[in-house]
């Protein structure tokens, strides 16, 4: 399967070509060759997936396989950084997800970004992102993952800040980069700690089920936890930053300043699930060696899911609603991993989580692209400017509805199946966790249908702006990806996912837990029903409800003031209380001392330069007295 290397190299090559070709070529050319390149690697990914899943099943499990690896840098004799391709069930699955969504976004952008200044730059960055994300996915060792982890971070920075003349976009890009960088600091520390004790970066060595790598590390403790737990917790913080888990989620809503297709690709389907992928990649270590960290992950995910679902209920910017929904869904995936055990039926949560990652990538990309289509038509992000679009944009409407039903968890759409498995695993882990998660699922149904009704139904008075040019359906190049993703969402639920991806790479037959399924369908219907009552037609019920829960509404609208806390910490504490005094100290104390030395030598030299005056008489007097003094000393003292 050597050809898998092409999947990685083609986007890189494309980035270099489109990035360096400047504006001399037509923008169309850049878009076309990028899209063709992505189409080729998408095809190759499918071929890889097919070949992998059909030929690599031996001795009851899928075998990991490294078709290519090269030495990149040697730190010590044991610690070497290699760049390579690791093919195993999850990486192959991710190849399919990343290339599929990327292809859809490439196609969609041909129309969506048409006429934008910097069209070829846009495609260059998309290629850079695709390359980095694929490199991350197929990493053979944790250091390679870190390398590409940083690269996806910078691609995200560049794409969020694509409209670089807009201060909001620049600020959002900066925020996204710094918050994730801050998290990566812990990731790096975790990698260093882990590699120091295990003397390896290799995933294959780290995750070989028997845990022989960790012979004595478990017994080394630091501040009450074993060193291994510390390392794994630190690594998870890195994942939490990328995956926007509370309290490191603050960058994701702001990242919506980027072009909408970018939000679909990076901030919904692929990059933000890198944290989930990281935990899944190291899952045997988490599950077998440090279960307490894994439980921490579950609770972090649970809280994040609840927290952002509540916020999503009150946002009015449609992209922000989707952003908080993404955070919430990633919370679901983390819970899935966190409640899972290792091997066979214990690994239900693991399988469910990655299944959800897969289905979510498709329907959330669909939602974002649909939102982009709406924004493209209405020229606004705010749901207050929308309403009654279902007749004017029939394709967008129907595909959006499919995605909403999927995320709400209505069968037979894909989200139902994956979410149901997560719920089943959560109930198996602890019933309270299961019930809370079910409640959040209901909340999800509610806010998604609030969004849906506000865009496509609710006859709000049209704003004067839109009366001039009537809203109409987007061109075919934009609706085609919507239709494709909607079809995937329709059928993806029936994929026997357990036959491909499981915690121990064996086979697992999914059996629907009807008890859980029934309750979750009822809860979802309740959520949809409530949204229907409140938002289907324009009425004053939402306003009254808002008044009733004024405090909660206010707090949720302000995202529970987390951003303000960060602003206080960075601006007031770091900038004003550390950096400013330090700069003063440097200029006045450290440098002042050097200047003082100079001044003192200057003064002293002014004083003593009088001695060398050039007057013969003065010299003669000094000479005379000195001679007498020396003679006196010689005569009387010695």
């Amino acid at each position: 399967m050597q050809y898998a290397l092409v999947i990685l190299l083609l986007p890189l090559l494309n980035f270099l070509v489109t990035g360096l070709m400047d504006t001399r070529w037509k923008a169309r050319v850049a878009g076309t060759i990028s899209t063709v390149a992505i189409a080729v690697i998408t095809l190759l990914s499918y071929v890889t997936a097919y070949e992998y899943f059909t030929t690599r099943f031996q001795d009851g499990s899928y075998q990991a396989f490294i078709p290519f690896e090269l030495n990149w840098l040697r730190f010590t004799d044991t610690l070497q950084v290699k760049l390579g391709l690791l093919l195993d069930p999850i990486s192959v699955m991710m190849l399919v997800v990343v290339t599929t969504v990327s292809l859809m976004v490439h196609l969609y952008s041909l129309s969506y970004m048409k006429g934008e200044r910097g069209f070829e730059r846009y495609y260059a960055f998309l290629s850079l992102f695709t390359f980095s994300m694929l490199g991350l996915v197929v990493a053979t060792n944790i250091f390679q993952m870190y390398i590409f982890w940083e690269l996806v971070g910078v691609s995200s920075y560049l794409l969020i800040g694509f409209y670089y003349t807009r201060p909001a976009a620049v600020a959002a890009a900066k925020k996204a980069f710094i918050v994730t960088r801050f998290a990566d600091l812990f990731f790096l520390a975790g990698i260093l700690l882990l590699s120091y004790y295990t003397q390896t970066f290799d995933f294959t060595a780290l995750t070989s089920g028997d845990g022989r790598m960790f012979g004595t590390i478990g017994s080394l403790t630091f501040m009450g936890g074993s060193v291994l737990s510390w390392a794994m917790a630190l690594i998870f913080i890195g994942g939490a930053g990328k995956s926007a888990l509370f309290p490191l989620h603050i960058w994701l809503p702001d990242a919506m300043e980027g072009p909408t297709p970018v939000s679909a690709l990076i901030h919904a389907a692929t990059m933000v699930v890198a944290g989930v992928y990281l935990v899944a990649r190291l899952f045997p270590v988490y599950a077998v060696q440090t279960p307490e960290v894994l439980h921490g992950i579950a609770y972090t995910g649970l809280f994040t899911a609840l927290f952002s679902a509540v916020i999503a209920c009150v946002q009015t910017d449609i992209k922000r609603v989707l952003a908080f929904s993404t955070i919430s869904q990633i919370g679901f995936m983390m819970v899935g991993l966190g409640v899972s055990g290792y091997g066979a039926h214990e690994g239900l949560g693991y399988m469910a989580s990655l299944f959800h990652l897969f289905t979510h990538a498709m329907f959330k990309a669909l939602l974002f692209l649909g939102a982009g289509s709406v924004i493209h038509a209405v020229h606004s992000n705010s749901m207050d400017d929308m309403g009654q679009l279902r007749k004017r944009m029939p394709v967008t409407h129907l595909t959006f509805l499919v995605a909403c039903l999927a995320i709400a968890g209505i069968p037979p759409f894909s989200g139902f199946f994956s979410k149901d498995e997560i719920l089943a695993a959560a109930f198996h882990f602890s019933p309270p966790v299961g019930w809370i998660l079910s409640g959040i699922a209901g909340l999800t149904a509610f806010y998604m249908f609030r969004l849906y009704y506000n865009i496509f139904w609710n006859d709000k008075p049209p704003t004067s702006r839109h009366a001039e040019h009537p809203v109409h359906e987007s061109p075919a190049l934009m609706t085609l990806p919507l239709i494709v993703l909607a079809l995937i969402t329709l059928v993806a639920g029936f994929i026997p996912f357990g036959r491909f991806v499981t915690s121990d790479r064996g086979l697992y037959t999914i059996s629907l837990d009807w008890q859980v399924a029934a309750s979750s369908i009822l809860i979802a219907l309740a959520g949809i029903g409530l949204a229907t009552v409140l938002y289907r037609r324009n009425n004053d019920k939402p306003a009254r409800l808002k008044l009733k829960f004024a405090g909660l509404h206010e707090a949720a609208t302000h995202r529970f003031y987390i951003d303000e806390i960060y602003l206080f910490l960075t601006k007031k504490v770091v900038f004003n209380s550390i950096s400013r005094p330090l700069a003063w100290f440097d200029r006045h104390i450290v440098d002042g001392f050097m200047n003082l030395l100079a001044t003192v030598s200057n003064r002293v030299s002014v004083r003593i330069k009088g001695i060398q005056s050039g007057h013969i008489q003065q010299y003669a007097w000094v000479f005379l007295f000195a001679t007498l003094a020396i003679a006196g000393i010689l005569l009387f003292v010695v």
Partner: protein
Amino acid sequence: MNFLSLFVVVPLLMLAGLFPARTMRQIRAVAVTGASLLMVLACWLVWMYLAERSSGNTSEMLFTAETVWYPSLHINYSVGVDGISVAMILLSAIIVFAGVFASWKMEHLPREFFLWFSLLAIGVFGFFISTNLFTMFMFYEIALIPMYLLIGVWGTGKKEYSAMKLTLMLMGGSALLLVGIFGIYYGSGASTLTITELAALTIPIELQRYFFPLTFMGFGVLGALFPFHTWSPDGHASAPTAVSMLHAGVLMKLGGYGAFRVAMYLMPEAAGEMSWIFLILTGISVVYGAFGAIHQTDLKYINAYSSVSHCGLVLFAILMGNETSTTGAILQMVSHGLMTALFFALIGMIYGRTHTRLVTEMGGLMKVMPFLGVSYVIAGMASLGLPGLSGFVAEMTIFVGAFQEPDLLHRVLTFGAIASIVITAVYILRVVGKIIFGPMADRHHEQLTDAVWHERLSVGVLIAAIVAVGSFPYWLSEMINESVAPLITHILR
């Protein structure tokens, strides 16, 4: 004649060739010829060196030659290179080359400028090829003197003050160094000043305790060791573009190079005993420089403080004293040299257009000067350690190396150093977001033009080197590591 001496002879010829040069055209012709020759020589040296090593030559120094100058004091002109010096020579050649093109439009006394510039080059190359303590010191001084004039005459702002401050502080450093060298010479009871021969002798530990700190501090001043770093912000801010490039890019590396090759290598016992003091100081440098940079508004000051932080990391890694960290230190010298030179080149070019270096007075430059804007972003990304660019490779090698020392002090300092990469991201992105992106801050900037060919060449060479080191680090890292390994074995014996 040994071909290493060409690295001194070529700038010397450049110097001689500049005397008869009258027109700007002639001056440029001489400077470009000299710089290109040096570049070719450096590439050839790398090739020869790698070929020699792969043919199995394992002696510590290659291409050695010795000419006796003053027998009774054992002052010889002796040259030789190992992987470390080859890396530094390559770095110097690249920066001299880029520096010449960055000062293409020198209007004020161009001939004299390039004269001093060549003298600076003689000092730098001479230092890196020397294996005799005395000649090393001599070249070190040769490199320092031209700085005073280059800043004092061709500088900007409060240039006289800065030139004086820089020269005095560095001279103070070299005074300490001279004492240190005497200490080594007499302490070892030696009949030689050649480093490799001195290393075989033992200096009594009582003497080492005096002379190690002196030598280390002497070099440390040049390497911007806290609290002797304050010459750097003022000096760099006042210096003309090419001088900033060469000074921050190469001259500051003399500090790290000497600290390792002379202080650590010749007095390993004291180094082992006293490294913790200097480790704390360098740890402070790293974090303190980064925080200092956050608050600055002048681009050159930002980069100067950033240099304090990055060069602090060099000394920090050297003091960690293991093979990996020291390799990382040398890589960091190369990497920092390239990217800080790039930064200063770009700042000079931007200043030449906007006539301001204040972050608050610029904005949205990407729109009018896309080439410089993109290059600035790349420089910034290299500085904050983006994989694929040189900074990442160097920093990671240092961190992994530093992590091999498991005791509490080393761990705490290492975490502090790692934390500095976030602070770096903050000040880099703040500047990039303000001056390169965002809306135009000044209407008059609408008419500005993008880089012209010689500027593009200068910037392009540096970026190419940064990408080459960052994307394909294996050969460079191995070349350095091979030479570091025996030295570290000697230090830890």
